[in-house]
């Protein structure tokens, strides 16, 4: 049994999983939620290497991938899910060397990141919510759906605080808070940004008495009277994309509440170590996603330079995907289907993306070790509990070496 295993099934990155292996398969992942159980599965993944659909040696596949990328006029490096930060660091290095565009799965939460770049943010690591918050406001999200253990691990107070903690659900149209909240506030989607504005005005001591915002304003007053409020909102898009104005309004409200009391805004993010991709790109280039090395030094193109936009505009002619192709958002996968792609990552050979090169690797956190980031940017070690295919790090390093020293 391997204990203290970190799960990358969602951004909660629960690190209390105990994995039991029997007969070369994962028999049990205790403490894991339904999402986590599905993420671990039985741990059996393919270990193939393919070039143009046919089995190939690693050397040939790496050579072919290098050739594809170095001969491309405008390559894209895309960091998908389920790879470690160590692999992501190599991926960015390859992008730098190729003068490529680099983007990652972290771009799914672009609205929240951009709002943070405009204003900053008042945030906390998840343990602070658990240990400090006497008021928890779930803003249009029930974490039970996409972050099953969030409430149990990060929002269930220790006994003494638990007696006084209040949980509020803000329902915004179909985006509803948890069913068992003590208080519900309903806001029409079309009113959401204005309602947050009215709350902020209330916090600032200005009159915000419009009748249709009465319940929101009342909530703002409760927040002002709390000792420490946690606002929990989803950073990942659902049926609808995240409204950038809403993201920024929540940031501003969270900051303003630190006048009368304390407040943190918690932005829920999905799994696969996407928060790690954000952190790695930021430390190596200064920018969290949509980075373009075309001119040499990195340029930030959050508006038109995301992988999705580049593919839609037919701006890139070849791509390197590092990570599990199954984690790639739909529209992006469609765009990748139109160009030549090399895929290095878990289950690459089973990808729907029509790849020239596919190299299966281990899954970070199941077969591969390394580091991953929780949704709140807390770094965690990954523990391998099962032997798997060749490690992603080994393959990506071989590719980097081939690209940098190709002629050697």
């Amino acid at each position: 049994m391997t204990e203290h295993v970190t799960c990358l099934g969602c951004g909660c990155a629960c690190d209390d999983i105990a994995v039991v292996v029997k007969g070369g398969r994962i028999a049990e992942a205790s403490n894991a939620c339904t999402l986590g159980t599905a993420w671990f599965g039985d741990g059996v993944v393919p270990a193939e290497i393919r070039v143009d659909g046919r089995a190939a040696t690693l050397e040939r596949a790496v050579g072919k991938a290098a050739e594809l990328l170095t001969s491309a006029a405008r390559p894209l490096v895309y960091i998908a899910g389920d790879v470690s930060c160590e692999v992501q660091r190599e991926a960015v290095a390859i992008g730098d060397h190729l003068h490529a565009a680099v983007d990652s799965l972290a771009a799914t939460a672009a609205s929240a990141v951009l709002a943070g770049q405009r204003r900053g943010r008042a945030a906390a690591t998840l343990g602070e919510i658990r240990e400090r918050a006497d008021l928890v406001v779930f803003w249009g999200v029930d974490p039970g759906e996409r972050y099953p253990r969030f409430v149990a691990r990060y929002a269930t107070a220790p006994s003494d605080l638990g007696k006084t903690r209040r949980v509020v659900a803000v329902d915004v149209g179909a985006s509803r808070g948890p069913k068992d909240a003590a208080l519900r506030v309903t806001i029409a989607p079309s009113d959401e940004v204005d309602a947050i504005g009215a709350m902020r005005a209330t916090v600032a001591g200005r009159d915000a008495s419009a009748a249709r915002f009465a319940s929101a304003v009342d909530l703002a007053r409760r927040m002002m009277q709390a000792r420490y409020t946690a606002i929990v909102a989803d950073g990942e898009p659902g049926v609808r994309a995240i409204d950038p104005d809403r993201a920024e309004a929540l940031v501003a409200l969270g900051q303003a509440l630190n006048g009368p009391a304390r407040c943190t805004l918690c932005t829920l993010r999905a799994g696969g170590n996407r928060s790690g991709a954000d952190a790695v790109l930021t430390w190596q280039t200064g920018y969290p996603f949509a980075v373009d090395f075309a001119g040499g030094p990195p340029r930030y193109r959050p508006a038109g330079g995301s992988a999705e936009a580049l593919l839609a505009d037919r701006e890139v002619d070849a791509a390197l995907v590092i990570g599990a192709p199954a984690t790639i958002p739909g529209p992006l996968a469609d765009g990748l289907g139109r160009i030549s792609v090399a895929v290095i990552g878990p289950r690459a050979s089973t990808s729907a993306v029509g790849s020239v090169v596919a190299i299966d690797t281990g899954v970070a956190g199941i077969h591969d070790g390394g580091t991953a980031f929780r949704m709140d940017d807390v770094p965690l070690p990954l523990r391998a509990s099962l032997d798997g295919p060749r490690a992603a790090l080994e393959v990506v390093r071989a590719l980097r070496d081939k690209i940098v020293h190709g002629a050697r």
Partner: protein
Amino acid sequence: MSNPERLRISGGAVYDPANGIDGAVRDVCIEGNRIVAELPRDAPRLDVAGMIVMAGGVDIHSHIAGPSVNQARRLLPEERAVDPVLAPRLEDGTLARTGTGGTVPSTFATGYRYAGLGYTTAMEAAVAPLGARHAHAELDDTPILDAGFFVLLGNDDYLLRQIAAGETARARDYAAWLLGVTRAYAIKIVNPGGVSLWKSGGDTGRRNVTGLDDAVGSSAVTPRKILETLCAAANQLALPHPVHVHCNNLGQPGNYATTLETMKALGGQRAHFTHLQFHSYGGERGKPWQSAARDVIEYVNAHPETSVDVGQVMFGPATTVTADSPVEYLLATSSGGGRKWVNVDIELESGCGIVPYTYKEQAAVAALQWAVGLELFLLSTDPWRVVLSTDHPNGGTFLSYPELIRLLMDRSYRDERLKRVNQKLLAGSALLDGLSREYTLGEIAIVTRAGPARLLGLRNKGHLGPGADADVTIYTSDGDRSKMFATPRYVFKAGTLVVEEGQLRRAPAGRRLAVRPEYDTAVTKDLRRFFDAHATVSFDNYGAEPVA
């Protein structure tokens, strides 16, 4: 030039104060990654006649890696867009890495730019234990520099519980354990108790401490008690660097009293007080600020167990980034607010606050801060205990060190600059009395390498004696000291020529500097219980140790 295994650096004026050499012409011999006493006559020779030879620079306090620094990078895309860092072609034909600069450069750019200034060692001054793994990963991507970090430990939930319970020995064991598992170099204390109160919530009246004897949760826990406990622990553990203290009340008028009280509380014991400039103000809230540099530095001068770095403010853009989150809240909301502001409350220990800031010559407070820093430098009587720093990027970036050196070495330049700054709050400043002191090259060598290396307990750094690391910086002499220190002619790191005439030639990985003190492992049993009850990270996953 090529990089021979053995090299005689010949004919330069050597400034090696740790070995009593003050500008004498002599050879410095490198064999492999070390300085040696002699080499055979036929060893390759680098003629540096007329040039100035010093050990590689050592930065005792800088913010270059980790979660808070990365938050600061992410916050400022606009400033880095205008400061792209190109990838030079290295000696082996490969390209270095690109990056971006601004006040908080990306990791590779940080390594290259430090090396470009002739600095070869740097200490990241504040890493939350929870972010240690992240900080190490960034340092892995920061080439050339030998680097370590100070782990934050002045607002730690477990530590404060031990202090409340009077468990001094267990507190010391905990500190030792934490240093080891985070692979840190020293203990950092930031606003002891103050950050803990800020995190515990409530209204503005009780969100920080104001003095050494304020209660922090339990009445048995006070900033004084935290300081005493950790200072004693660091000295009992015989750590190479003592506690590194960021005092209470940073940036507040009248805070010099707290600073002096803190120094006295730890009197007789080794302790380092950081960015002293930010803690040396007279006056009081709501009244004009003034300089209290003289009071503070006179205490330091008279107490050989005390060391400091200055944290000089330099005019221009900066980013204030600190674990002292309540201070950043005040800065973010002062003068009508409207600034970008990041706050991150970090579980178990510490916080993070970030506000971008520009120090303007014409702003009264910025001018006072600039003057206070210079006073501390110029009134100090022992350069071995007063280190050059800007608290990068808080008072200005490390790229402003050459300009700061010129201010210290060139009185007429300094006086000219002084005339241009806002004079409103300078009434009590010793600078106006015409401080005539000019630092010598030997003294600059002390405050930028020999002194910090000694204070950090890095025996092979900061000097050029046999056995020292072959970190050598060679400058072309120039009357304009700013120009001279900005572009060294040659920089060697561990015997490798990394920079030549401003060009990056090689970018080897640096070494990690860390300690692993002994402790009574009984503490881990209690810690495990504490983690089970209060942490959201498994005890076995905390810190930065490699896992199987």
